[in-house]
């Protein structure tokens, strides 16, 4: 941990806060923006792109509500800078459902198994589960719980979320 930098003494190599251009693919669509380097990826998705499905809970990497896929892997978007996504692909909960009247099999399983109550944590859970089920098509309850360990839910007590993942795994296996 560093002490706050002595800004007056800092050499003027490049101006702090200078905006930078980035091009990022989000849910298959390319977006080009100029942003401050300190803008978090979570805020970029929500405020620059209007994709407010990615929720911000703790904003320091504990709650998992802001989980998105970064080049296919689940990451916490509040622990990344938007500029780091330049040239990369991000997937958010908005990209899951195949159409406006249809749900993704994992979303469908959450609905059926009552895997959510208030729904605040749900996008983070969903985006955690997508790559998990890709790698573990037939997971044990233990594996499911370990995979979900980085996502907090204050409503459900997790039982129905675990049940929803089991059901989602079945649905995805059936769908092949």
């Amino acid at each position, binding site marked *: *941990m*560093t*002490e*706050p*930098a*002595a*800004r007056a*003494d*800092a*050499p003027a*190599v*490049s*101006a*702090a*806060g*200078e905006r*930078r251009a980035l091009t990022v693919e989000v849910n298959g669509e390319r977006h080009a923006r100029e942003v*401050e*380097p*300190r803008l*978090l990826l979570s*805020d970029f998705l929500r405020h620059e792109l209007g994709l407010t499905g990615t929720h911000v809970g703790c*904003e*320091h*990497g504990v709650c*998992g509500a802001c*989980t998105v896929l*970064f080049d296919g*892997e*689940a*990451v*916490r978007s*509040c*622990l*990344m*800078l938007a*500029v*780091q996504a*330049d040239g990369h692909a991000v997937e958010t909960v908005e990209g899951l459902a195949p159409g406006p009247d249809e749900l993704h099999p994992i979303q469908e399983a959450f609905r059926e198994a009552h895997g959510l109550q208030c729904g605040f944590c749900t996008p983070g859970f969903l985006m*955690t589960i997508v790559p*998990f089920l890709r790698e573990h098509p037939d997971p044990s309850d233990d594996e499911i719980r*370990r*995979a979900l*360990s*980085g*996502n907090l839910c204050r409503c459900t007590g997790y039982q129905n979320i675990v049940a929803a993942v089991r059901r989602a795994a079945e649905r995805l296996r059936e769908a092949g």
Partner: protein
Amino acid sequence: MKPAPFAYHAARSVEEAVGLLAEHGGEAKVLAGGQSLIPVMSFRLAQPAALVDVNGVGELDFVAETAGGGLSIGALARLGGLERDPRVAERAPLLAAALPHVAHPQIRNRGTAGGSLAHADPAAELPCLAVALDARLRLVGPAGERTVAARDFFHGLFATALAPDELLAEIELPPRPAGEGWSFLEVARRHGDYAQVGVAARLALDGGGRIASARLVYLSVGDAPIVAERAAAALAGETPEDAVFEAAAAVAADEEIEPSGDIHASADFKRHLARVLTRRALAEAAARAGAEAA
């Protein structure tokens, strides 16, 4: 909960990254996985004037087998990748056992081996493992490179041997001695939380079935990883049995570790945990050593 403004540089090579660090004269921080740095910046506990992002430095992102059974890990190797890498499981099973304890899957997908070492959180697993495995760390600075033993790298709470213009480039793990047993155990209130106490143990048996050598390194019970020298020395030459493990555990827990209490665990409770974990870790390591010898 938002970072203060900073200048951002995306380095493309080690040379460029080191040059940028030097240019900023100690006011820049290296951004690797960012899983510790970004929250610390969001809390405004750190307000670096500049960040040198090394995520685009491909030459730092590798795992390679080295001669004789060792392993070389690039500083930018992600913890999740190491966790899934069969070469790590085979050549550094102690490290493989510890990786699933590092935070959560989303954090491990992003967090890097070098970042965890350079951050030097005494509650983190990687620094403890680097010391336990006698890792050698290659540091690159503007004047060239040097190699530092992990034991000499950690200077205290978030403090390391790294100069402000140096970059940790590579972690070299020496070959695992044939037949050596190992164990990693920790206690955390919830899986993925920072551990209250953790221990990495290595144990080798001689031809007669006695303990030839042992190594015990602790996390979260001091300002840096703590090596229990006296406990390890007490084990040498002894028969691997419960009473011997218990005696060594008492030495480590009562005399060698330096835990401080927090809201979740008093110092006394941490000593108790260390004692129980040490006994179990030694028994597990001895069983593995015996199994390999058989």
